[in-house]
């Protein structure tokens, strides 16, 4: 597409506004937030909504035309997203399908992988997920133990993964496995693109303290994969994973061009902000409560301002890519502060619900139980601090006891 053919942002915005008004269903502001742990219907709905966007010509705004997208700029995407306020949107597809998996395939995938997977996702026909973390792994992703061995032309996969967001709803997943144990850990990994319904793949949903069941764990027993399942090069899977991690940080931080549509109220709080709680508990007149609600308003606002500034700066090169960790860290802080403030504001009411229902305030209590989610998901805050100090501030790297050591000689713990 030449410059002459590109629609102006404002024209695109106007067209999107009209189209949205004429075609997309309005959000029901009064609908209760969906119960956590029972979101199968949401996924069906997300695919439907994505198909509508695709039919209307507003899907995959920043993806290249040859893979089913519109090939437009971040400014177009942002304009579209702003216009979606008040409409139902398939926001579940933003992370990981579009902004992590498709973004990574775009960078590192084979032509076939790009053509098939990205366009299917844009059409609303497929959902993608990631099989990265392992139970023994924590922050040390590259220390993973799942193995893939070549048997003729076929890869045989064995091992266990966990923390796969929404994997139960997905069709394909990016799976990182060890293919060489005699070299240092980063050099023996390979990334595979695998169907979630492959024989030998068994999946469970993990129940979280807030009742959510969005994470899955998977057991791979002699799962067979063709050579074309490899993404990037054999034993160069870490390069692919690094792109995924970059895109994940960017997406979680709000800087991704592949995120489309406003998410509405943040789910982490179950819609129960300190403001809502102050109203619900009848404490809005107390000065201490007002102070805390104001603090929340400020933190939320600064969080958005950070995303805008750092996203822009990474875009222009004013800040290097690892600056995305600034967003990651600040997001965790503001999300956590919100749960703390909600608890403070609720005071004695946080302990109980309304009748046998948890109610507005009880949901804030439950959100408080998963307070750390914001500094664990998408890499821990500790890893973000390592990134910032080492990659952005150029401080000396942490001594790693597994650096340059063949992986089969690295010490492992008991947990």
């Amino acid at each position: 597409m030449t410059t002459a053919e590109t629609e102006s942002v404002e024209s695109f915005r106007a067209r999107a506004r009209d189209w949205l008004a004429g075609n997309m269903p309005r959000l029901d502001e009064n609908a209760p937030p969906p119960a956590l742990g029972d979101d199968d219907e949401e996924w069906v709905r997300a695919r439907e909504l994505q198909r509508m966007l695709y039919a209307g010509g507003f899907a995959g705004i920043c993806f290249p035309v040859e893979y089913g997208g519109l090939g437009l700029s971040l400014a177009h995407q942002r304009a579209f997203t702003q216009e979606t306020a008040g409409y139902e949107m398939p926001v579940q597809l933003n992370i990981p399908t579009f902004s992590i998996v498709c973004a990574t395939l775009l960078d590192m995938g084979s032509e076939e992988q790009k053509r098939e997977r990205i366009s299917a996702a844009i059409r609303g026909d497929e959902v993608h997920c990631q099989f990265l973390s392992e139970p023994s792994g924590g922050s040390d992703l590259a220390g993973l133990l799942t193995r893939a061995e070549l048997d003729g032309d076929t890869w045989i996969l064995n091992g266990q993964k966990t923390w796969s967001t929404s994997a139960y709803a997905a069709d394909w997943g990016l799976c990182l496995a060890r293919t060489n144990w005699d070299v240092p850990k980063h050099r023996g990994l390979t990334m595979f693109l695998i169907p979630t319904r492959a024989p030998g793949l068994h999946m469970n949903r993990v129940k979280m303290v807030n009742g959510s069941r969005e994470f899955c764990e998977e057991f791979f027993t002699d799962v067979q994969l063709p050579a074309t399942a490899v993404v990037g090069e054999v034993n160069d899977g870490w390069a692919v994973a690094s792109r995924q991690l970059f895109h994940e940080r960017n997406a979680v931080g709000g800087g991704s061009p592949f995120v489309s549509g406003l998410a509405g109220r943040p789910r982490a709080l179950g819609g129960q902000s300190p403001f809502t709680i102050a109203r619900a508990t009848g404490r809005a007149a107390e000065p201490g409560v007002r102070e805390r609600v104001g603090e929340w308003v400020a933190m939320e606002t600064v969080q958005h301002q950070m995303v805008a500034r750092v996203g822009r700066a990474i875009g222009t090169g004013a800040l290097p890519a690892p600056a995305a960790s600034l967003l990651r860290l600040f997001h965790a802080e503001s999300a956590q502060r919100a749960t703390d403030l909600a608890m403070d504001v609720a005071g004695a009411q946080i302990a109980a619900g309304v009748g046998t229902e948890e109610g507005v305030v009880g949901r804030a209590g439950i959100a408080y139980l998963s307070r750390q989610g914001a500094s664990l998901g998408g890499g821990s805050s500790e890893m973000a601090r390592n990134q910032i100090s080492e990659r952005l501030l150029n401080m000396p790297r942490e001594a790693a006891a597994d650096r340059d050591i063949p992986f089969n000689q690295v010490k492992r713990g008991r947990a």
Partner: protein
Amino acid sequence: MELELTADQKLFQSSARSLLEKDHSLDRLRGLAPGEPAWDRDSWQRGAELGWAATIVPEELGGGSVSGEGVRDLTLLAEELGSVVAAGPFLPVNVVLAGLVAAHGSGPDHAATIESLVAGEQVATWAVYEPGGQWAPEAARVAATPTGEGWRLDGTKDRVEAGLEADLLLVTATGPEGLVQLLVPASAEGVAVSPQWALDLSRPLAEVRFDGVVVGAEAVVGTPATTPEVLERQLQIALLVQCAEMCGGLDRMFALTMQWGFDRYSFGRPLASYQALKHRYADMRTWLEACHATTQAAAEAVQAGSADAPQLVSVAKSFVAERAQWILQDCVQLHGGIGVTWEHDLHLYLRRATSDRALYGTPEDHRRRLADLSSL
């Protein structure tokens, strides 16, 4: 924990531990279906047989403590129960006993009730919160109206611990001449108890409506003159139990997280070798010691009936409840993802600590009370 225990106290502690291991598994708690009772009366009865409702009741009223310092023994026990997030009416029964014992000799006689509570034959609880309200017992809206022979009660209480199971409700109400506390049978006509969703899985709560409930004059606990100090005593015991059980839970969860730090490897070395984490363990260890220090100091003051006991329980509650949150949430963080799964133990402790933080005065409430008590 207490740094030094007598042989008798150690025995008392170990008998409690044995029963807790048998009756109070965390897996049972985690597996409760909605509406399923968190504890049963048999189990509470077994606790009562070990003296769990006896420590702060004088021997002449059927109680007794192993060390002769009942409040110290109570906190010792509360630590043990807290360390396994034990379900049961330990807190409300002891709080009601604290009130009845404090009122003993002023107003109607409740010796028989005391005896049956000590023996675990009856269960009682304190109905003090009101729907939508914060901690404000002195502003009770439940109305106690004199009827000539007795009292009529109207209004609603909520967040009543063990409300569904209790035989007796100690109701803090407002009468024509100020606060009055009435001991009301849950079976009395006009009492309607309904379950209330609770954050703490181990402590079912209830809402209790009083609709023209009539009780005799003998239902009164204390006199107008003694009610303030009886209420204060109830609060002090509630706070001590909360602080001690939080300490017990923190000890357990900190130990678990310590072990995790040694066992879990990342990048070829244990988490415990990372300075940024080591420093957080050091902070937690420090706060944990401070939690014990202030809880034990408060217990001593309440035991001795010191003039500064009201201050010291508020100091302890405001401090321990806040630090419990800091420590437990950081334990979650150090555990990583599994720390926020339903299958992990941490959330059971976090639920208890969050509920303890909320009830009988939040840290903020107690800080304002400390300002009051400091004559600011």
